[in-house]
């Protein structure tokens, strides 16, 4: 490489050593130290600092003083880096070449957002249906969601919960949509890592896992909801989300079947281990440069 073998130069100009910085710093410190010791110290410090600054300027104006440093003799210089061609392991899956971006097939993130929104709608339908059936009011599930944040709702009676409350509605909508979109995005990102039955995994397994997590902590997350929750309906609404979102997303693009890959590879974390050549095979040569 070109910059590794320098042409012969006489020397290199570097800023010359100077004692003015240390003297200036000393003067400045003394100036301050005088405040807590004696005015005399401040005076001395101030004068020192001024003298040093003048000295400093005289050294740097109009052009900073430099000195020419001789280059080291060639034998004491850095060794040129030795190229080692073919020393990098290869990926055998995906594109040819040493390194690729994996996973190869991914969903567009816009698909995730769309899936999240559709899932949100599906979930809302189930939840509102539950509200209508169990409480004869579509607002109950919405208010219950808002009760996660609003303490007064956490202790409200059913009549209160059945009413339309604009603040609660707004809050619930933000929480519901926000989290739905985020979960949709996650779906888009990780469904390709479970390529075998994306809809099954995304539509049933994840919602079940998620429901389990919620079940274990709802008492603290949202006590109001916890008191009134009907778990069958809750899990059903989770399924509605998962299935709708999973369906929308997996339809957007075909996912290459990667199930023989280890998970870390499917996630795009590692590239080794893909080389199917056995340990006894001779190491493969890299392409000639």
């Amino acid at each position, binding site marked *: 490489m070109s910059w590794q073998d320098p042409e012969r130069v006489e020397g290199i100009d570097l800023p010359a050593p100077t004692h003015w910085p240390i003297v200036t710093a000393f003067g400045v410190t003394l100036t301050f130290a005088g405040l807590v010791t004696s005015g005399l110290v401040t005076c001395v410090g101030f004068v020192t600092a001024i003298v040093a600054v003048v000295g400093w300027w005289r050294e740097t104006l109009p052009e900073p003083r430099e000195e020419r440093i001789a280059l080291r003799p060639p034998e004491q210089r850095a060794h040129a880096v030795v190229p080692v061609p073919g*020393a*990098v*392991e*290869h*990926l055998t899956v995906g594109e040819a070449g*040493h*390194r690729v*971006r*994996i*996973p190869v097939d*991914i*969903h567009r*993130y816009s698909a995730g957002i769309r899936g999240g929104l559709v899932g949100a709608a599906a979930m809302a339908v189930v939840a509102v249906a539950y509200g209508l059936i169990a409480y004869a009011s579509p607002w109950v599930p919405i208010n219950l969601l808002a009760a*996660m*944040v*609003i*303490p007064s709702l*956490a202790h409200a009676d059913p009549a209160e919960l059945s009413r339309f409350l604009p603040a609660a509605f707004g809050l619930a909508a933000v*929480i519901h949509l*926000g*989290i739905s979109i*985020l*979960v949709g*995005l*996650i779906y*888009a*990102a*990780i469904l*390709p*890592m479970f390529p075998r039955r994306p809809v099954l995994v995304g539509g049933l397994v994840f919602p079940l896992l998620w429901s389990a*997590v919620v*079940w*274990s*902590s709802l*008492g*603290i*997350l*949202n006590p109001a909801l916890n008191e009134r929750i009907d778990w069958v309906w809750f899990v059903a609404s989770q399924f509605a989300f998962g299935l709708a979102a999973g369906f929308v997303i997996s339809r957007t693009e075909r996912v290459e079947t990667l199930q023989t890959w280890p998970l870390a590879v499917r*996630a*795009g*974390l*590692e*590239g*080794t281990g*893909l080389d199917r050549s056995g340990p006894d095979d001779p*190491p493969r040569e890299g392409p000639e440069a």
Partner: protein
Amino acid sequence: MPLTLVTLVRLVAVVLLAGAAGAASAAESIQPPSMFSPVSTPAAEILELSWLVIGITGAIFVVVETLLLVGIVRYRRGRKDDGREPAQVYASGPIEMAWTIVPIIIVAVLFLVTTRSIATLQKDSAPPGWLDVTLVGHQWWWEFRYPEYGITTANELHVPTSGPGGGRPTFLTLHSADVIHSFWIPQLAGKTDVIPNRENHMWIEPRESGLFVGQCAEYCGTQHANMLIRVIAHPPEEFEAWVQSQQQDAVDDPEVRAGRNRFLSTACVNCHRVTGTRADGSFGPDLTHLMSRATIGAGIVANNRENLIAWVKDPDHFKPGALMPAMGLGDPEVERVADYLLTLQ
């Protein structure tokens, strides 16, 4: 309670901490001031929230450390390594997306729950019927005033308990006479700073009677360490009785006249108050009912004759740097003053 993630965490923590606390203080009567044994509504609410947070952070801890360990073991350089460089993987959009969004969701959930919790816990004014107490932090002792009853006391706060069917929570208004202090009894509530030229509030609602300890939590100078707090929660009737005894004027026992005179003719009166006498200072604790307190020096030593003598002779003996000067009284005088103090029931 079903065996859930949170209950599991709870169980583990309770066992560990009970062991932790028990091991050290098996024989003592004082309960360690641990936030894990709340006896008051705010503390209990905070603990509830803690379980969620500890559960979530605990789960993250387990996941990340496992990933790390697996990575270290799985990808260590093997013995028979051929020296070639592993394939270079630059990035992976999806997985990065996933590990950005999952924390966002966790953070969002934590945030929402915390919001509710803050809104529940933080009260800016006392709901009707609550007991009002004004607390003043001093270097290095506490003053408690009960405006309703006209009582002033120090270092030991007496409050009523609430039963299951409700009761009388205490609403504290916090002021400081000098620097910043912080009022903290972990079993009753979180701490709130006590700040000069500012009014702060907090509330407690003990549900059990007993003695609960804490101490000043904001560094406030030399004796910050010995600015202890004792809160005594009484059942309501007992509390009423205490209030009545505190409302009495100081006892004036003729047997200790000599000590009383010495006390009143010394500069003690500039700093201390004893109602019904000319002692009307407010720089030091109110001594009117000194003997109703179990400790002196803001909780550092038991309140008995011996300690009172030692204290009056030289406060620095117990509390180096304390703002009460040694008054230079001779031994017999100190003893007489102490005898007088001992009558201030």
